[in-house]
């Protein structure tokens, strides 16, 4: 009897423990996620060359508004993309959510995780930015995100010295690019550097080739989840061309283990080991920190992505990130939201912010900035970037951001397999068609 009593009471106590947990679990899902003090707002930013500019902006804001403090925290790019999602899901999102707009923003909107800013951010703020850039922050006809970063069209950066060494001109067509490959290799120079480990740099090749071959409509059909949209001939042809370039030895040895995190991809360019790098303007910033003399010595060249013979896409079309964006977390407290909105209205449109972006080699996404560009330290470069973004008939958002998270994840991995020749262009299209609608 003694024993059975003890067994029963032990069982009872386990049941009690479970009930307690279940009880706590039941009542723990409401209330705002308080992160960072009772009434200061929080913002997460990315590490890297632009980090200091964001920090300076918030520091200046905090100094000028002692009763409206914003606490800042920085994350590495890939880590951020995974963490911010968990934070939003746990109701612990920062007040200001940094993002790329596109599919991720849409999923936040669908989950009610970010606020509609249409009523609170007026045209005096949105009018400060280029219309095409502002538009990316809208879902339907409502504004959910405000631009906060430089315009980032992808261009080909190249090492002028190495081109002179082999006596070649920068390529304007795909065929010219292919012809350069053996010549660079003969001179013991890697034709193209790319960080394949991070996957997203590979995507710029795919985006540009598909655009040059079939124009922006090809991707629009994918974004609209049209059945078999990935089987478009433009995808097959682009991936075939990529594999030809890989076969020809166009990409530096070991490109798939080069990481942007260490800046090794761009380092190959300015240390004279590789001739070309298709990249976002962040590459320019990496050179600024890594080897400023490379810039002052006039060794850096840049050119738009070459044309593809017989292609439908305009050679002026660009891909990349129109900007980055701030959204406001729906879970934040009223006071936190007020601080965040005040910052969006007053902190982003200042001259100081524009100048700070210019200083680190970024082109502000603002209207009427040409005069400032012309007087900046590297005027020709900045003007080129600005014009290519502003005059582009189509400025496509990076696909991994435009698509839903599940699709973006599958796209990056499948594309890496194309580059590694683990799958054929046809398999790529088949694999990607399966993700449509997810």
């Amino acid at each position, binding site marked *: 009897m003694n*024993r059975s009593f*003890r*067994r029963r009471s*032990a069982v009872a106590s386990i049941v009690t423990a479970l009930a307690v*947990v279940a009880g*706590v*679990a039941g009542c*723990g*899902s409401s209330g705002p996620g308080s*992160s*960072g003090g009772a009434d200061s707002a929080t913002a997460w930013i*990315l*590490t*890297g*060359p632009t980090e200091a500019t964001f920090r300076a902006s918030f520091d200046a804001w905090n100094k000028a508004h002692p009763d409206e403090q914003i606490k800042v*925290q*920085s*994350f*590495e*790019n890939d*880590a951020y993309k995974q*963490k911010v999602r*968990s*934070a939003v*899901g*746990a*109701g*612990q999102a920062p007040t200001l959510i940094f993002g790329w707009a596109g599919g991720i923003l849409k999923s936040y909107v669908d989950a009610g995780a970010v606020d509609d800013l249409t009523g609170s951010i007026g045209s005096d703020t949105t009018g400060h930015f280029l219309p095409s850039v502002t538009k990316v922050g809208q879902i339907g006809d409502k504004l959910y995100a405000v631009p906060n970063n430089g315009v980032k069209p992808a261009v080909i950066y190249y090492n002028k010295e190495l081109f002179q060494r082999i006596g070649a001109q920068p390529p304007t067509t795909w065929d010219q690019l292919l012809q350069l490959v053996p010549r660079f290799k003969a001179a013991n120079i890697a034709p193209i550097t790319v960080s394949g480990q991070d996957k997203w740099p590979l995507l710029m090749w795919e985006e540009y080739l598909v655009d040059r071959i079939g124009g922006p409509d090809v991707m629009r059909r994918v974004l609209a989840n049209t059945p078999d949209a990935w089987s478009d001939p433009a995808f097959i042809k682009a991936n075939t061309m990529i594999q030809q370039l890989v076969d020809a030895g166009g990409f530096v040895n070991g490109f798939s283990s080069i990481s*942007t*995190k*260490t*800046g*090794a991809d*761009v*380092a190959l360019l300015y*240390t004279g080991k590789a001739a070309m790098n298709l990249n976002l303007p962040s590459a320019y910033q*990496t050179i600024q*920190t*890594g080897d400023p003399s490379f810039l002052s010595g006039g060794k850096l060249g840049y050119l738009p992505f070459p044309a593809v013979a017989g292609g439908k896409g305009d050679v002026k079309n660009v891909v990349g990130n129109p900007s980055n964006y701030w959204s406001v977390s729906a879970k934040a407290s009223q006071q936190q939201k007020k601080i965040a909105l005040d910052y969006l209205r007053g902190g982003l449109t200042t001259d100081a912010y524009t100048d700070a972006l210019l200083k680190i080699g970024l082109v502000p996404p603002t209207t009427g900035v040409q005069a400032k560009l012309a007087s900046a330290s590297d005027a020709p470069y900045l003007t080129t970037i600005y014009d290519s973004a502003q005059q582009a008939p189509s400025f496509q958002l990076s696909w991994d951001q435009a698509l839903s998270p599940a699709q973006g994840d599958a796209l990056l991995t499948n594309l890496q397999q194309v580059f590694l020749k683990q799958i054929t262009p046809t398999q790529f299209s088949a694999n990607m068609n399966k993700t449509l609608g997810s």
Partner: protein
Amino acid sequence: MLDLDTQPSTSTDLPVEPTGTTAVRRYRGNVPGAVGGLVWLAIVIVPIYFIVVTSFRRQAGFFAGNPLALPTDPTLDNYAAVIQHDFVRYVANSVIVTAAAVAATLAVSLLAAYTVVRGTGRMVRLTFSVFLLGLAIPLHATIIPLYYLITRLRLYDSLLGLILPSVAFAIPVTVLILVNFLRDVPQELFESMRMDGASEWQTLIRLALPLVRPALVTVAIYDGLNAWNGFLFPLILTQSESRRVLPLSLWAFQGEFTVQIPGVLAAVVLSTLPMVVLYVLGRRYLVSGLTAGFSR
């Protein structure tokens, strides 16, 4: 250090001086053995040398020079940069998590282990079987529900949210080792103490605790290492810099030191220093702790 007089030696420490109780050693030099040993030494030491030497290099010439040459003008800048990056806080967080997790694990596991050895009844045996089962559950597999549970308990992004699951996952192996150890204590000792009128609680504190102390030190080190080096829990269950622990901070440094391999490697060296100090001070404890309970 783990042996009682009543059983064969299960000692796992490395006496520096030979004690001459083991197998005859043939003192003619074993050439192939020595060569193999030295090759492995190179495999172990060269990467470590590279890590340490690179951490003293300047960023400027890093991509150009020979990576194994001694730096021409060594610098401590990388270390300064890492320490300015809140490194001390990360160490403190790691210490808090490790200490709290180990203390809680030892306390509850000792109670449970003592009960398993001394207690009777199906309930006790069932509990022990549940813990044995726990040994077989791959820790990482429950991370998604655990993330859900921790967020619902409002423990997301808190050190407590790291400590509690760490304790839970350390309990099975800790209980098992303590049980194995307590089993080798002659039961008559406990029984005679009980017959002298001591309560079960007094028996635990006055008799079992001193006897089991060496095993406690050993499992404390084992559990401590796991908590100290844990990566997955902090990766998923925390987010703020103020809650960051060492292994996660290393991962985060990768981005903060773009183009800065020397800086990242300086962080690697600094994060390993506490373990190196422990190794120098208490090599025997560390070695036996690592191989806790597996040397039987």
